[in-house]
């Protein structure tokens, strides 16, 4: 199992609130979509502040 940050693009309002709180600078708002880099530590701060609930830290099966 490993944790990862999932972006629900169909929910995201591409406002950038998450980008501003990311302690690692791992998120970036590129026009109308959000990208996450390898610097992400799955801390979940972005997922908490998102006004719409577009971000989620989940446990995934490693394949």
């Amino acid at each position, binding site marked *: 199992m490993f944790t990862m940050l999932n972006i629900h693009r169909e929910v995201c*309002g*591409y*406002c*950038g*609130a*998450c*980008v*501003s*709180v*990311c*302690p690692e*600078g791992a998120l*970036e*708002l*590129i*026009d109308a979509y959000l990208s996450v880099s390898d610097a992400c530590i799955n801390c979940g*701060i972005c997922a*908490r*502040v*998102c*006004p*719409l*609930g577009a971000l989620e830290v989940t446990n995934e099966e490693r394949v």
Partner: protein
Amino acid sequence: MKSEYDVLVVGGGPGGAMAAKAAAEAGLSACIIEKRPAIGTPVRCAEGVGEELLTEFIDPDPRWIAAKIDGARIVAPDGGELNLSPDMAGNEVGYVLDRKIFDRELVWKAAEVGADIFVKARAVDAIVEDGVVRGAVVEYMGSRKEVRARVTIAADGVESKFARWCGIDTAVPMAELETCAQYLMTDIDIDPALTVFYLGNEVAPEGYAWVFPKGERRANVGIGISGKKSGNGHRARDYLDTFVRRHFPEGKIIELIVGGVSVCRPLACTVANGLIVVGDAARLSDPITGGGIYNAMYTGNLAGKVAADCIGNGDVSREALAVYDRTWRESTMGKAIERNYKIKEYFITLDDEKLNTLINSAKKIKMDKFSTMTLVRELIQHNPKMLVELQALKKSLG
């Protein structure tokens, strides 16, 4: 897009537009790069601005004024209403803008004095050489190129990355990021000349809900809550939906607007070698109201002028550019941010009962002209039970 400018501005909002305009007016070559395909959209703003503050930089124009505001009302958690007359409401009297038009107007003004503008042009990295910021790597029309500049101005808003690439930590503490949702609503029963603010831990924990008119029967209806109060099932949009169901169940929603507003202290330092950070990117939105339009315009304009002076003197070091940092901190705006930060720190400690007490006692206070210190003094007189905490607040304000 040229490969070299005197001043490169990252971001085409009010801060960036004012910066490029000021630089171009001083005879410099200036360029704005905006990552979005259009200036002014998507809107991420409640669009309110104070009258005096706005007219300092631009004459009011009906094309981008959605409503003229004559007064403000604060609604306590128990429903008690505090009405602020135009004299008392200060910055809450003014205009509700149409940012889609307003932002374009500001960028047009920059273009008119010679600034270059490129949309869908995104900074993907900073060029930093020997500890000096020398421009940006820009992605434009499917390719990346270096755009070098003597001074780069980061005006890239709340989701700012540019200053981070230059080594400045711009991360906003979770508790000090107001997470916001807003509907542009139509067909609702409102007073078109009155802004209304709703306080309370059930309405908007560590934030407020607002109704900002945009015409006879339409308004920005929004809500902001502290990031630390946000989570599954109780996000800004959940609070907004609850608020709208209660107050405007018949209204039609014609736009969803979301965003984050920082209510932390500004960046510890807003300059580096070859770099100036302005507006929301510098965390300069007002810690109480969340308003950032004027602060961005003021610091953008100042940044453009300081860049011109420093380039003229052949010194764009952090020490030379520091006059920008000092000037805004000592300005009325800078002092207001510091004062409002302290007031905000106090306000977020208040439960609904205390909010009710303070708002309802404020009704009895007569002030010819609004003054924070007078208000706090009067509140102390009216609320002996809250003497200790109010005196601590007063002391912190100096």
